[in-house]
């Protein structure tokens, strides 16, 4: 087989940081898909190369015109350098020199939109999502959002039917700021669903990144969020696939894929991009992953609405009931 040479188009900033700190690191091919390949480093972290438009944290978007499966297989070893990836068997190399850098946490330094605007955005997203094909957890949209938005009966599936009660209980616990029960209920969600990122993990990832953004926007207001996210990420190491555990670890730190990042920017911050076009891009992720993330997002935005409304009432001294924050749960 001849050497497959390609160029990196975009590189995640956290990947570049890793490469700077680990010169000539030898990674092993963990899993190969037609449009993506995962490289295993440091036992449990994954670097994801993709030839699609989207890019993930610790990811690299490459200019590859064929399926990765044609020249890579699980177990192949790749030497990683800051300017070049090269397979030890000589079958492929990636030139990183001209890659554009993608900042995985850039949205966290922006000014947030008013809560009412976020709420309207959530409603638009919800109405649009109700018209999309019902796969994965999406049959649960009307139930979880208390909306009867479609006259069509929900075309549910085995997985969504099985997990409906637990998802609803998790959502209610978070909306009521009952963090301990919410963490307990998360045990019933982590790793549930088909595929390499099970459906409930995508749902949880949306919650975790919304929580993280809220925490960054309101320093000191929600001291439990960091621990809550860390605990879920930690649990995921044992309870779900390695690919999904990586996704949840990144989400706990406020990092999601580029498409998801742009959608979150449109939800929380000023964006010149069309909300629905961004949501459509996210929806196209996997068979149901995009829809599961979007369902998690509209549910998590409901929590944001409740939490921020409480803060603004507190600021105006018009609140009538003070909800005491729960103690931080321990591992």
């Amino acid at each position, binding site marked *: 087989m001849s050497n497959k040479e390609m160029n990196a188009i975009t590189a995640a900033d956290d990947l570049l940081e890793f490469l700077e700190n680990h010169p000539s690191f030898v990674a092993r091919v963990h899993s190969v898909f037609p449009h993506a390949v995962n490289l295993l480093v440091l036992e449990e972290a994954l670097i994801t190369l993709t030839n699609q438009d989207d890019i993930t944290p610790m990811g690299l978007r490459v200019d590859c015109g064929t399926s990765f499966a044609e020249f890579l297989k699980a177990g192949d070893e790749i030497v990683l350098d800051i300017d070049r990836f090269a397979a030890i068997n000589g079958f492929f190399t990636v030139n990183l020199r001209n890659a554009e850098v993608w900042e995985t946490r850039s949205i966290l330094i922006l000014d947030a939109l008013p809560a009412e605007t976020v709420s309207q955005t959530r409603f638009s997203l919800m109405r649009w999502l109700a018209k999309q094909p019902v796969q994965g957890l999406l049959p649960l949209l009307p139930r979880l959002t208390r909306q009867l938005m479609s006259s069509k009966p929900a075309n549910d599936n085995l997985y969504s039917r099985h997990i409906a009660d637990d998802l609803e209980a998790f959502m209610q616990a978070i909306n009521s700021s009952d963090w301990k029960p919410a963490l307990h209920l998360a045990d019933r969600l982590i790793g*549930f*669903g088909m595929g390499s990122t*099970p459906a409930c993990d995508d749902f949880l990832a949306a919650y975790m990144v919304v929580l993280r953004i809220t925490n960054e926007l309101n320093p000191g207001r929600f001291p439990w969020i960091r621990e809550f996210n860390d605990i879920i990420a930690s649990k995921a190491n044992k309870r779900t696939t390695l690919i999904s555990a990586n996704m949840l670890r990144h989400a706990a730190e406020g990092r999601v894929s580029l498409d998801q990042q742009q959608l979150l920017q449109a939800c929380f911050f000023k964006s010149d991009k069309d909300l629905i076009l961004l949501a459509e891009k996210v929806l196209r992720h996997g068979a*149901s992953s995009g829809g599961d993330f979007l369902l998690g997002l509209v549910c998590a935005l409901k929590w944001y609405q409740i939490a921020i409304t409480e803060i603004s009432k507190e600021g105006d001294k018009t609140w009538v009931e003070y909800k005491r924050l729960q103690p931080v749960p321990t591992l």
Partner: protein
Amino acid sequence: MTIHTSIKKNAYYDSVTLMLLSRQLQELAGVEDVLVGMGTELNLDLARDLGLATGEFDTLTPNDLFIAAKIDEAQISMKAVEDAFNEYLNKSAESDSDEDYQPPSLSSAIQALPGANMVLVSVPGQYAAAEVEDALDAGLHVMLFSDNVPVEDELRLKQKAVEKGLLMMGPDCGTAIINGVPLCFANAVRRGKIGVVGASGTGTQEVTVQIHKLGEGLSQVIGTGGRDLKAQIGGLMMIQGFESLIADPETELIVLISKPPDPSVAEKIYQIAKSSPKPVVIDFIGGDRAAIEAAGAIPCISLEDAAQKAVKVLRGQEYEDFTGFSLPEEQIEQIVEKEAAKLKDDQTELRALFTGGTLADEAMKLLGDHYDIYSNIPLSPEMAIENLPEGRGHICLDLGEDEFTRGRPHPMIDPQTRTEFFESHVDEKTAVILVDVVLGFGSYKDPAGAVADSVREIRQRLSNQDRDVVVIASVCGTELDRQDLNKSITTLEAAGIIVLPSNAQAVRLTDKVMQRIKKGAGDVR
């Protein structure tokens, strides 16, 4: 029934694949229930709840794939289920590796499709110039569907294309047929000897459709984008396309279509026409007839007239301006009398609801001498729709303009916008509704059906007031279009709509009906 588990250690598949595989396994004879998933604790719990657990579950990790199946071993073995799984998997991998591949960038697209010589760019306007620049640098012709591209970028890119001998069709170019391949909005027409360069989408479609109906075909149909003939761009692509067709051995006659160009641009085009070895038919809709004739080209009075003249010249036949109808004059008069008789005296207004901008423009130019028509693309500023006095008067709208398509598809793709205008803009004062029905690639699957439904609803509403309305349409399409010209005409006629074979004829019939009403009710101007 027995329960079996098959395990694939450290196997990763996306959920698209697993979902499809699950469905296909479920359909196998002898399989009562099946669950495919990664071996996470919760997925295994689900399998246990479904009664699909076996002792092998204890060995699974979250990174293993399992197939748990309840089967009737008299009909199927677990080995056969596994074989079916692997077979489906291989088929899925084959399809993933070629047909489903979506190149993330222009360079990977070129790599995936070596030998391609044209790129269709349809990205948000602010990013389009960079993509086009890369394509031109790679030696590729470009069709730029995107709009909102700055005019400075358009000029720079077109200059580069000309330097390299390439086409840069656009921005906002919606129609082209290159080497028989229709791009974006185009109709299914036969190949032939007439080449077209058009700066207007539906105008070009109308001409190509009429040429097809007259029995001839098209060699190449080149779009330029609407701004090309303005002074800033200087007609770079009209000239490039014109010269390409002069050089093209398959093209024997050339048709140029545009709104009136800037005089400086027109002059350049006339100079090329003067020296063209091939006959040139020009429809600069409402343009300078004398100047065109002076250049040795053939001027036209409508899009249909351009097609008629092109075909006649190609066949060596005599030609004159086509101002009439395909039907005999007596039959037209009978239609006018019959339709006008449906109306009450106070029904005097025109509602022209177009999806094609050039067709709307042509309608206003053909009717302009007889009526004051208010529009969102007015012939003069004072006739802007905002100036409509107290909501009453003749209206002609191009529903494909930006103000109507923001946040929703173009009305050629989705008829909803026009449906809403039927509801909001047609009332008891409306005498005639004039519409276009554009078929072809990219257009809605049944535009005639959508118009027919709207007309039925309008007639139902008006019947409560003991009123009716005259509805006149033309269909821009051929029998080869997927929507089918003949089927579309039948659908419209079944709803009581008068269907004419061209936009120009539909407008002329509208004029005749309106004139007939004027006679009965005094001048409504």
